[in-house]
């Protein structure tokens, strides 16, 4: 399969689960999906298409929370980023992708403590970076977090 066929394959299989498909350049593709389709999408991308999970990044927006899952198709030098958006800013829940592959364990733990996102089905959702006596309602990468120790 070449690069174009991979993208056509993704569009064909995911079909109307794709809310928005944006090809910024040959090497950078952004696809918006619903949170409920996340597990199916990631399983297909990782297991069937053999993409490498590069990283996930969460963003605290004024209107909600966004998580992007960046997958790398190394043979084409292409990164396909899947974007899910939740309307909540606090108490966000989303399915964990760690049961599909272990490589997502740490980044989900990181997002859990820094953004307060709950990953449903994560096998080991404990703290990764923050100290044990850190208050559980403070999430440093949220926009409303004020650094009290500055």
């Amino acid at each position, binding site marked *: 399969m070449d690069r174009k066929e991979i993208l056509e394959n993704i569009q064909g299989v995911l079909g109307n689960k794709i809310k928005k498909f944006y090809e910024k*350049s040959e090497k950078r593709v952004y696809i918006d999906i619903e949170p409920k389709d996340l597990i199916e999408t990631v399983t297909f991308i990782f297991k069937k298409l053999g993409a490498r999970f590069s990283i996930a990044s969460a*963003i605290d927006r004024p209107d909600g929370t966004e998580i992007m899952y960046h997958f790398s198709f190394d043979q084409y030098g292409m990164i396909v980023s899947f974007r899910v958006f939740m309307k909540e800013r606090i108490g966000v829940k989303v399915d964990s992708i760690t049961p599909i592959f272990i*490589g997502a364990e740490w980044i989900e733990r990181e997002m859990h403590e820094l953004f307060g996102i709950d990953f449903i089905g994560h096998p080991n959702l404990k703290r*990764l970076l923050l100290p044990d006596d850190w208050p559980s309602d403070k999430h440093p990468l949220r926009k409303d977090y004020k650094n009290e120790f500055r």
Partner: protein
Amino acid sequence: MSHRTIIPIGPYHPLQEEPEFYQLLVEGEKVIDIDVRIGYNHRGIEKLSESKSFDKAAYLVERICGICSTSHPLAFVQAVENISNIEVPERALYIRTIIAELERIHSHLLWVGLAGHFLGYNTIFMWAWKYRESILDVFETISGNRNHYGMMKVGGVRRDMYEKDFPWITRELDKVVDKVIMLKGAVLDDPVIHARTKGVGVLTKDDIINYCALGPTARASGVDIDVRRDDPYAVYNKLDWKVIVRQEGDVFAKTVVRVLETLESLKIVKQCLENMPKGEIDSKPKDIPPGEGIGRAEAPRGEVIHYVRSDGSNSAVRHKIRAPTFMNFPTFKKSIVGQTVTDATIILAAIDPCYCCTERLTVIDAKSNKEVMGSRELIKLSQEKTALLKKEMGIE
């Protein structure tokens, strides 16, 4: 009845360059499980970057790591350039390649030295670090600095290189080539090193894929990935070099990959010096429009990826940084379990863990972290080690 012991290593320990806390659960001499605590080095860089302009953030991310100090700014400026497809002058791309490859050479030499030290070969340590010194001299000539070069900027590089320095740099590099070839012979043909590293800490291809591991760790297990070739940046696609891949997945394979990569990097730098065109070094971009960009670079330890989102102001709304060790680190669970305690150090060292890269993001709580390991635990660790050694020798 089997007796289980927990051996704490760290957070401050002579074995480690940086604070990290491992708990090895051992049964006799065998490691049953490992738990890793990180977070002792947090500086809140992702948060900090949101309050810095794009120009200042390049300096900031350079301070994520001292060893791979150019990979982060390189990935970052590429991410910002990706937002609005900023063109970079060709001469600047050549200079970027030279800096990035020199960094790989000094980082790999540093690792070979440390690995030698962990195995009890302090001569290798002294040699490798001595040869590394010539690379640092070259850095000083190019940028004025031995470690933080401050060369990368959005749209180009900050300093030009002088043609009059090239013959001297080439001579220095030639000397290092000879030494690395010598080192290659000394390390790769030594029967004791074979005995200590072959078949130790094996990661299979499936492990690498499942853990999404990167860089030399992946390439030593037969996973052929290298951002320099796969998603070419700078001028890598114009140069003649090859990706080193080994199939075995043990510590020895990782050593071979790193030593051979050093030679490839030396080749790349020499080609850059020969082919560098004249011209501008900076396209001086003005404003960064709203949008998002991803930049990546192959650091000595694997792929570094930066995601930057801009809202049209002069700083990022979100800046996600992922260093390679973040993905390589969890593979310990696979590589160390079932091995003996005596091999634990070299397995831990084999992925070339770079702690400050892994932990770049939180805000430091001044009141926290009372639970760090003190000297008492270290003495306990030391006693346990001695006890083990005694047991091995049969003196009880």
